[in-house]
């Protein structure tokens, strides 16, 4: 089992969701995060103050998957999130020690397999 963490542009989040859906990946957490990955700073002006905004809004996906699903999941996030410009984001795949489905108490592989899937 792995936890796939994808950090993507907010405007591409819908495309990622669509790609994951097409790849039959279910069970997703999403959160809004802010960060900086080397892209150009955004310059904004409010009255007399000009500021350089160094952190950008991103969307962070967290997906727990069985080993067979790691590649399709990574591929789907790449397909959905890529624009080719700096700032498209990163994907981290990290090992998972234990998973528990709270409702049933199922663990590990059974817990990350979608209901009815």
């Amino acid at each position, binding site marked *: 089992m792995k936890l796939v963490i994808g950090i993507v542009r907010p405007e591409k989040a819908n495309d990622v969701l669509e790609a994951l859906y097409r790849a039959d990946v279910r069970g997703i957490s999403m959160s809004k995060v802010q960060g900086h990955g080397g892209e150009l700073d955004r310059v904004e002006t409010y009255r007399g103050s000009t500021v350089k905004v*160094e952190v950008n809004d991103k969307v962070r996906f967290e997906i727990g998957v069985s080993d067979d699903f790691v590649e399709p999941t990574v591929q789907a996030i790449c397909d959905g999130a890529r624009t080719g410009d700096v700032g498209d984001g990163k994907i981290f795949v990290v090992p998972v020690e234990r998973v528990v489905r709270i409702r049933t108490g199922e663990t590990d592989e059974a817990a990350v397999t979608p209901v009815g899937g």
Partner: protein
Amino acid sequence: MDAPIIAQVTEIDTGDTAWMLASTALVLLMTVALGLFYAGLVRAKNALNTFMMCVSAIAIAGLTWALVGYSLAFDGTGDLVGGLDYAFLQDVTFEPRDGTTIPHLVFFAFQATFCIITVALISGAVVERMRFGPWMVFAALWSVLVYSVLAHWGFGGGWLIEGGTLDFAGGIAVEMASGFSAVAAAIVVGARKDYGRIGLLPHNSVLVLLGAGLLWFGWFGFNGGSGFGTGDASVLAFTNTMLCPAATLFTWMILDLIRGRKVTAVGAATAIIAGCVLITPAGGFISPGWALVLGVLGTIPVYFVIVYRPRTRVDETLDVLAAHGAAGLIGILFIGFVAQESWNGVSDGWFYGNISQLGDQALAVLATPIYAFVMTFILLKLVGAVMPLRGPDHDESLGMDSIYHGEEAYPSGEGAILVTPEAGEEAPVPVAQP
């Protein structure tokens, strides 16, 4: 009806003038209220741009109206367009405007706020994608070539008003003009890139309701001031502006209940505006009872257009056609049925024995949409030939606010570094002191 065109000697009435000064301020507030309403209906990343399209209308139409617009609309009785005697505000002074008891300057300012809000209304068709520069160019051209002409037809002494068409506060020049221009604008500019693919939702429905409420408040000046004083017509229009939208709001909530088992807030806000538009042309011509009937009956076609339009490929984003074009058209026609001379002192409608009034109203309903649609289509094609109307898809993804304004409606405040820290260099602010 607006000022009779025959020159007549009138004196300034202080009561009338006081109310018209207040009305002018009320109508100007409507443009900002519309900005709130529109901004709430779009996504957060486009909220400022949407608001700024409305605000920019004050800058643009305010100027064009003073330079030539007012003169083209309100100078003389030419069939199609007025003269240029009032251009650059020549002869617009403290003397009373012909046929009114208020100073010409106040009459001018009151009419200016109408031109401004009408231009702002059209922006609803092109928000979330049109570039800001071309919008300002289009707004300037439209305010002169479309608004002034239609205002002349309906208010200023053109062929419709001289032919007997009744339009109390702008069913022709404001509502039908903006509604049908909006469709043409949506067609020429094209749909947003995500239209019909993903749900594009209002980002703040509280702003939508607040904007609608403030619009209603301002509309008491819009309709209540269109009698140019405190006479019977103004009083009737004022009260009808209370009644008709209330009936529309009630009917809309019932329709929502029937259709989806839930009464929606964004629907209620839309209903308030539709109700105000319905009564705009008819305000000073129909009885309060008929105003309630208009509020109920008029809601049904407007509701239908709102439900049907998103199923088409025309991304007329904020439904200006439904809330303004369709509602204004119904209001204009309704006068032809139920106008009562005993209430308005001007003319009866069909139900009171004067079927020819309905013919006069039908003429406006045919001519106005055609002129507005065709002219807007041509104007935007011309502007588009000189400068692109839209930016690349990438800009649309990022949002109009940061691309065209360099600001965000809801900045997080995190990670912002001052670029010109004149004060900061002398006195650095410690993050944390030991």
